């Protein structure tokens, strides 16, 4: 197989990375070698073998669905690159150019703060720690 730089660019786009031509070229060559090496797994007969995605031996533990407050808004916003004190960024800090995507609609569905319509008085729970 020969991976082409334009294929790398497509995958990079999926991963929200923007690589310059030199890097696309270099990655394409390296990916060729690495993926060819990974393909040696193809020679192994794994018929009927159940995939093992995690070595965890126990059932996923359950708990009561109750909110446990463990952090304050100021803490969560403390590391934000930009904030208006309530949310992660202010509209006036960003100039939304007329691009291929309808900016206002995209903003609404992607803005993290829209998930949490908190008022100034109410603190909200931290996102659950992912496994």
């Amino acid at each position, binding site marked *: 197989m020969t991976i082409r730089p334009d294929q790398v660019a497509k995958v990079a786009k999926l991963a929200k990375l923007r690589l310059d031509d030199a890097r696309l070229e270099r990655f394409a060559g390296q990916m060729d070698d690495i993926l060819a090496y990974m393909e040696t797994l193809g020679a192994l007969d*794994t018929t009927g073998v159940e995939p093992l995605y995690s070595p965890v031996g126990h059932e996923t533990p359950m708990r009561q669905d109750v909110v446990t407050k463990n952090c304050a808004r100021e803490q969560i916003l403390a590391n934000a690159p930009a904030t208006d004190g309530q949310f992660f960024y202010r509209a006036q800090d960003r100039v939304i150019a007329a691009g291929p995507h309808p900016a206002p609609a995209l903003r609404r569905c992607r803005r993290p703060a829209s998930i949490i319509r908190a008022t100034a008085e109410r603190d909200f729970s931290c996102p659950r720690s992912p496994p």
Partner: protein
Amino acid sequence: MSEITTLTLTQVRDKLAHKEIKAAEAVAACLARIEATEPALKALLHLDAQAAMDAAKALDTAGPQAGKRLWGVPVLVKDAICVKDAPTTCGSRILENFTPFYDASCIEKLREAGAVILGKANMDEFAMGSSTENSAYKVTANPWDVSKVPGGSSGGSAAAVAAGQCYAALGTDTGGSIRQPAAFCGTVGIKPTYGRVSRYGLVAYGSSLDQIGPLARTADDAAAILSVIAGHDPKDSTSAPREVPDFEAALAGATDLAGLTIGLPDEYWGEGVDDEVRQSCAAAVDTAKRLGAKVVPVSLPHTPYAVATYYIVAMAEASSNLARFDGVRYGYRAPEAQTLEELYELSRSKGFGPEVQRRIVIGTYVLSAGYYDAYYRKAAQVRRLIRQDFLTAFEKCDVICGPTSPFAAFPIGQMTDDPLQMYLSDIFTISLNLAGLPGLSMPVGLGQASGMPIGMQLFGPAFDEAAILRTAKVLGNALPPLPQPAGI
């Protein structure tokens, strides 16, 4: 090096507990050692001398407490682990000013036990690397020869312990990142069973592979740290609901290896291992036999597929885990971004280094439609076969033994142009993370050709860290001790 900093952790802990030295003295000695060695070693990304001294003085005022198993002991923490109010960069520019507002669970436990956290140790960016050359900030040197790498990705942790900057350091191991730098720097390093130590507060690289563990100068020291940081944590759903044995008690009084059967896998003792590595490891096995251990051959037949399996799984998981770094809530945000798409792309592309970008791209590729079954699902199937190899081998032996790395520490810059060659050097450490079993590396001497430390691994059955720690303690005591590192 001051006398205090050449002590082992258990020795200094004893002196602290008996008030022969104060916590402030132990911390001051480590800080002096850090000041003397850091210009050449470059092991640290963050040092808070004032906070450490304040913590030590507070401990001295309150006095030693029997229940605090690490009272007054200065330690360092790999920069992938969240320490409250200290920067956690993961060796990356994308988290350059990130300051967590909480402690990882293992850090809470260290503090409760009375340990003093000196600062954060250097690492390969997002734990991706085997030499610490992928850090976006600096390349840590090996204290035995500063022209050589300390190993990675926990290179800062390993170098700091070997150089006497601290008595123990926390590292993380996803494909060997505790064990290989421990080997390269002549220390003990243990990766616990998956689920033994909580990952809450660890910035995730490969969620089904990552474990936090200690690097220290002896097996007793490693056992002391592990006893404190291990244990079930409701905040980590993969944390095992299991009692933690008292590892130190399990090691107490152990003087021989009678009754122990050690398995030597054919695949770890064959071709591709440097002569000096084989010599040192074979000599250690002979010592184990003299101590009463029985040695049997075993086989881990899927070893040749381990590197490919690991990198598919790890890169896939990494591509998913690193999606959260998007310039929105924390970390670097590209100021010139106009659209939301640009915000994501430019922040990530400018914030992540090349190795991280490479792994994200490959991980995305192997998970993409049309390739998922051929790569990721296939690798998961082979992963089960690799785990089964170990379970079968453990029917014939109590612990499995082999070299940690095919070679000792290599010169800085030697492997950076060929990523695949770097990946292949993980051949002996990688299978353990896929299987989720515990393993450690212990120093077994200095290589005859290079004069650099040689490490040997011991693997154990799930949750049997006691067996490998005990074996490492007895064997370590019987082998000639390493001198102090000559390079700094």
